[in-house]
């Protein structure tokens, strides 16, 4: 099965093209089932790969399969050779896990969308977009070549744009799609420059080749840091870290299942994914790791704060996504590679569930505003139960999935820096609080809007079955994956043998560092490397007992209880009074930390600078330099002309006149009109000639 891994991204791509061009646009089209069939096939393949790995029958990383896409002749340092551009797949253990997650979530979302997007004007096109998106994401997951991965990255940005602006007849989605595209593009510029730098230093885009260079410390520290920061910038754009997180809340204008797939579970995880794929670069650049940790922390906190005051159910979930992405980035920055990726997988499950559940609720009550909901648990039992599972997971209550991953993240932060740990813990408690708040406002207590509550009913099976499936994973995935140390085997932290710039090349042929995220032996591979040149390992201690038990059993339930108490009633006066007391802070959070205004101001500054530059060009450069120079040249040419007329022409005329006068004078001497004179000359000439000839 692993030999056919390259098909996994190609099947949904083909399906999306068939859906797009086959059949006509029809609210009751049957083409979407083709997409579901394709995704089902990919899911089965991914599950088979993961199962073989878990059972031990398949050893990952599997050998790379590459095809030469094109080749061109080049010369480096005088030697000429043909440089091939390869495209291919590299399946390592994290990729296998992610394949499973992405295909599962995509499958659930597509099944859900059959019912949710029913009767939409562009029903068929939606599924083409979703399939295409999944193909791009899977392409990024399996790609062995960073440039091809970047291509998939950009394709994901494209489909995100298309899906956010799916209902483009309205103003909101159009503005939101442009904002999303441009903000992520800002981050992508950093990633692209990093890729170029890596190519300049390493000479290849192949991940294995790049790993080799970094593993042997062949790249200068400065270059490694710049490359890592560039990749971080790309991740900040795509994974909505501060300050580039402004696009994600607005992206909720798109259809909810699309949001579930893209802006909750999968695409926004692409940034984290790229950081983890190139984690060895970050290992070689500790400054960039530190930056990642702090950026993640700040993002997590800012987003959690914004979620505390928001009443739109999808907005709260969007802020929650940003916050959890901040957790993941922070984990990666603190050296908790396994923690970050583990959280990515569990987050995919419960966040997709949350979004799909929110979609179910919105579908029932036709509003996003939680102040108009309440008491829906009586009407929508399945949705309520599954969302409760998701909320418990995200808050970090054992044995739900989120507890295990969050616990690992907190351990990583504890071992790295207490200044990061305590704010992160606070943010985790805030997460528990606002998610419970969401649950309570929506489902618990009395209904605030009788009309809507009356018309609400449970959604059809095509919607509730995916919810149940995802709830199953949110409940058991964490527990199951941590049994027997599987998660450490599946998501091992990469290592590099030599820090950059260390000249003692541990050049021993036995080190076969051709594949990243290799086996767990890690730094014992390159036997010749002096221990001092390897990057310093993180501390490995666990949280102290009182924290390890206090957080999940005391603090988190406490935060949740607080939310229940504050928001249970129909009027939530306590919350309103707190909000009134801290009105400036509330305004700050409502205005999203003024980040939107910051970017608009930057655009204004850019416009002003451009206008100033234009004014300078028009008035100073054109007037003084260009026109002035022209005037100077005119003056010079006038002087030249004067010289020419007066002196040169006079000289020429003078010489001519002299010749004429000379001729006239001479002629008047001899040519008098007297015929006898002429005769005389003739006679003289004749006699002279005769004398000369006859006396020869």
């Amino acid at each position, binding site marked *: 099965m692993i030999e056919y891994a390259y098909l996994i991204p190609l099947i949904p791509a083909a399906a999306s093209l068939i859906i797009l061009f086959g059949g006509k646009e029809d609210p009751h089209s049957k083409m979407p089932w083709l997409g579901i069939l394709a995704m089902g096939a990919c899911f089965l393949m991914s599950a088979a790969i993961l199962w073989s790995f878990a059972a031990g029958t398949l050893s990952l990383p599997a050998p790379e399969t590459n095809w030469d896409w094109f080749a061109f002749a080049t010369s480096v340092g005088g030697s000429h050779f043909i440089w091939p551009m390869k495209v291919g797949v590299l399946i390592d253990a994290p990729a296998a896990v992610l394949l499973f997650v992405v295909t599962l979530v995509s499958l659930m979302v597509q099944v859900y969308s059959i019912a949710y997007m029913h009767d939409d004007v562009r029903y068929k096109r939606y599924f083409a977009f979703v399939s295409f998106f999944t193909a791009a994401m899977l392409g990024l997951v399996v790609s062995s070549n960073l440039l091809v991965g970047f291509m998939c990255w950009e394709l994901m940005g494209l489909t995100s744009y298309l899906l956010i602006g799916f209902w483009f007849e309205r103003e909101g989605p159009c503005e939101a799609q442009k904002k999303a595209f441009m903000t992520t593009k800002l981050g992508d510029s950093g990633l692209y420059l990093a890729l170029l730098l890596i190519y300049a230093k390493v000479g290849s885009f192949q991940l294995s080749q790049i790993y080799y260079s970094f593993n042997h410390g062949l790249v200068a520290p400065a270059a490694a840091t710049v490359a890592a920061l560039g990749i971080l910038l790309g991740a900040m754009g795509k994974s909505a870290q501060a300050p580039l997180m402004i696009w994600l809340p607005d992206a909720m204008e798109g259809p909810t299942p699309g949001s579930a797939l893209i802006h909750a579970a999968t695409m926004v995880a692409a940034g984290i994914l790229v950081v983890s794929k190139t984690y060895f670069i970050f290992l070689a650049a500790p400054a960039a790791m530190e930056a990642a940790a702090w950026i993640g922390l700040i993002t997590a906190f800012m987003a959690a704060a914004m979620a505390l005051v928001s009443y739109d159910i999808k907005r709260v979930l969007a802020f929650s996504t940003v916050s959890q992405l901040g957790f993941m980035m922070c984990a990666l920055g603190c050296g908790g590679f396994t923690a970050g990726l583990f959280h990515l997988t569990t987050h995919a499950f419960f966040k997709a569930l949350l979004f799909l559940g929110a979609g179910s609720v919105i579908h029932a009550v036709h509003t996003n505003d939680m102040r108009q909901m309440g008491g829906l648990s009586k009407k929508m039992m399945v949705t309520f139960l599954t969302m409760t599972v998701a909320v418990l997971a995200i808050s970090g209550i054992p044995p739900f999935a989120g507890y295990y991953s969050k616990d690992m993240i907190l351990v990583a932060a504890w071992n790295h820096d207490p200044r990061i740990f305590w704010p992160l813990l606070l943010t985790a408690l805030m997460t528990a609080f606002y998610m419970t708040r969401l649950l309570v406002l929506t489902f618990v207590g009395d209904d605030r809007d009788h009309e809507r509550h009356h018309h609400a009913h449970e959604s059809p099976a095509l919607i509730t079955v995916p919810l149940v499936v995802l709830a199953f994973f949110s409940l058991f995935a964490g527990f199951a994956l941590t049994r027997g140390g599987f998660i450490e085997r599946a998501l091992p932290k990469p290592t590099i043998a030599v820090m950059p710039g260390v000249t003692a090349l541990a050049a021993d042929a036995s080190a076969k560092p051709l594949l990243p995220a290799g086996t767990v032996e890690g730094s014992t591979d390159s036997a010749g490397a002096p221990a001092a040149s390897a990057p310093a390992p993180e501390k490995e201690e666990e949280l102290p007992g009182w924290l390890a038990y206090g957080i999940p059993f005391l603090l988190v339930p406490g935060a949740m209880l607080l939310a229940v108490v504050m928001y249970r009633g129909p009027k939530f006066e306590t919350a309103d009074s707190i909000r009134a007391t801290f009105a400036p802070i509330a305004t700050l959070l409502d205005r999203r930390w003024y980040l939107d205004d910051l970017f608009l101001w930057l655009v204004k500054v850019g416009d002003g600078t451009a206008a100033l530059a234009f004014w300078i060009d028009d008035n100073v450069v054109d007037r003084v330099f260009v026109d002035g120079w022209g005037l100077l040249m005119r003056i010079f040419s006038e002087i030249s002309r004067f010289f020419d007329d007066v002196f040169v022409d006079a000289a020429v005329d003078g010489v001519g006149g002299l010749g004429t006068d000379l001729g006239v004078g001479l002629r008047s001497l001899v*040519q008098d*009109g007297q015929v006898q004179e002429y005769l005389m000359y003739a006679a003289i000439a004749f006699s002279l000639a005769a004398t000369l000839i006859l006396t020869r």
Partner: protein
Amino acid sequence: MTLAHYMTVSALLFLIGIFGALTRRNIIGILMSIELMFNAANLNLAAFDRFLHPQGFIGQTTAIFTMTVAAAEIVVGLALLLAIYRNTDTVYAEDFHLLRG
């Protein structure tokens, strides 16, 4: 009397004729000098014929011929002179400078 004598006389006559043609003021005088030159040439012709080809008569015939031509030419010359005199009232060569340039 040898040929040389006749040639000398003929040369002297010719030179006197040249001198006259170049020096005389009056156009009729110039024409007379030209006549002199003609006569010198005729004398030369007859002399050469008598001394070099005694049986021949070519030279003498040519002399008569040239005398006729000379007469015709003088006629033309005098006609021209008359026309000039009627137009300009003078016969002195120095008065004409139309060819001056």
